[in-house]
């Protein structure tokens, strides 16, 4: 008999290749904060992301922000609002906002919204770190 005593949440990860719940992780590389998003960024999950990042940005030694969305399987215009809001904070500090691993669906949203005027896209996280931090 197969063991079915698992939470379904982990399985819903696979619905349309996306997770239902958003997972956020971060790391610090000198004056750069790297935030990785996994799952779905919509209106429902955007409040959580905003709070999470802004709490970390309370640290004034952070100058630049890279958001890695390699594992972000869904984003709509609520996500744009989050990015634009964080851009404003980072810009005041004279820093840069980079986004790495942009999928085709999210790329179209960035293109139509003109988001590429304010954020820099990167193929991968390493390229972002290299360009923004010189590593």
């Amino acid at each position, binding site marked *: 008999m197969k063991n079915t005593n698992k939470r379904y949440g982990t399985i*819903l990860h696979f*619905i*349309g*290749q996306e997770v*239902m719940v958003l997972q956020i992780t971060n790391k610090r590389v000198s004056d750069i904060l790297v935030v990785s998003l996994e799952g*779905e960024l*919509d*209106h*429902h999950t*955007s409040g959580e992301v*905003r709070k999470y990042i802004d709490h970390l940005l309370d640290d004034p030694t952070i100058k630049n922000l890279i958001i890695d969305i390699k594992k972000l399987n*869904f984003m*709509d*215009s*609520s996500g*744009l*609002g*989050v990015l*634009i*809001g964080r851009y404003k904070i980072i810009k005041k500090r004279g820093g840069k906002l980079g986004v790495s691993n942009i999928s*085709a*669906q999210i790329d*179209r*949203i960035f293109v*139509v*919204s003109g988001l590429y005027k304010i954020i820099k896209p990167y193929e991968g996280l390493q390229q972002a770190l290299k360009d923004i931090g010189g590593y």
Partner: protein
Amino acid sequence: MDKINEMKLRFVSKSSNESFARVTIAAFASQMDPTLGEISDIKTAVSEAVTNAIIHGYEDKMGYVEVLATIFSDRLVVEVSDRGRGIEDIEKARQPLYTSKPELERSGMGFTVMETFMDDVRVVSGINQGTKVIMIKYIGSLTDNIGGSK
């Protein structure tokens, strides 16, 4: 006409139902054998319209959001409607970057995203009567190869 299948989904205006609505429309539309790109387009557009019904239509009140989807041989028609406050100036509302709720960090790009991902978007609205967004997506036709995300 050549109506092949139809479903109507009604749910309360809770933000946790945004992802539920996406899964449901994706599962329904999958009967048309769409590409992953097409499914992603439909989910994104429906997510925008459902979010608008919840945030703008009902604001902090509770109400019902309805998603009516019809499969025709060549297209999916999705209608998202609420019985909320309605839109005063539809033309203005549809403009890129226009939002009535900048304080919520809305980007004002919801309608533009719907227009980008669907082949046709129509909006019907009445003050204090509600709003209906009707979207059409052609599936599997030759024109898809010209479009963006297949």
